[in-house]
């Protein structure tokens, strides 16, 4: 099964970054990628194992909405959040590492990636080249 990992370092204390990933009042500010918004009333967070994590992203261009349904399987403040998407089987683990000072590393790890081809929001395709493929190839591990 393929896996993907994304890492970013933020200039903010770990507790605050952790809360941003878990509280709708924060999620609404950043969850939707560029060209979309995620209104507060479209975010459901029940922060406990078995609890629902649902987001509705709305496209700025055409108003189309994309709902992502997930279920939390593990929440360990302020270190780790794990959710699974029942529709695709994809497991996403967010790990928060205190780098000292006020710097925090967030590591997003996704497993069962190949199954998520089935999710409708991922059906959108871009024309791409082999060059582009090579750049992201190393993110694939067995």
């Amino acid at each position, binding site marked *: 099964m393929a896996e993907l990992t994304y890492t*970013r370092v*933020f200039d903010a204390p770990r507790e605050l970054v952790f809360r941003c990933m878990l509280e709708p009042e924060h999620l609404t500010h950043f969850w939707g*990628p*560029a060209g979309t918004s995620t209104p507060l009333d479209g975010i459901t967070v029940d922060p406990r194992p078995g609890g629902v994590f649902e987001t509705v992203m709305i496209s700025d261009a055409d108003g189309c909405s994309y709902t992502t349904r997930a279920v939390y399987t593990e929440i360990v403040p302020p270190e780790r959040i794990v959710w699974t998407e029942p529709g695709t089987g994809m497991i996403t683990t967010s790990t928060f590492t205190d780098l000292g000072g006020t710097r925090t590393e967030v590591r997003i790890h996704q497993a069962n990636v190949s199954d998520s081809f089935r999710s409708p929001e*991922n059906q959108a395709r871009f024309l*791409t080249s082999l060059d582009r493929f090579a750049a992201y190839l190393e993110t*694939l591990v067995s």
Partner: protein
Amino acid sequence: MTVVDDRLDATFAALADPTRRAILAHLATGDATVNELAEPFDMTLPGISKHLKVLEQCGLISRTRRAQFRPCHLERERLDAAADWIETNRRIWAQRFDKLEAHLRDIQDTGHG
């Protein structure tokens, strides 16, 4: 639909192996025979053939039937479908992180200012 999904699943499974990725990288520079592909690896011809079979089955490469040495050819469409998914997913997280960065700056400014 299911047939397409299954092929994409097979593509990702095929890409998960470093030897097969190296074979694809070689084929990106042009068609090659099994012997040519085996050269950089400390591997027997049957070992390489096994990898080529996996790549052929999911449509990542094709082999001519008529030519004597049956050169392998990279099927870019299949590769692009997998690359597209990875790229879409990567962009979503990159943009999400950009926005989170800005949000954290905003709330810390108001919080401490």
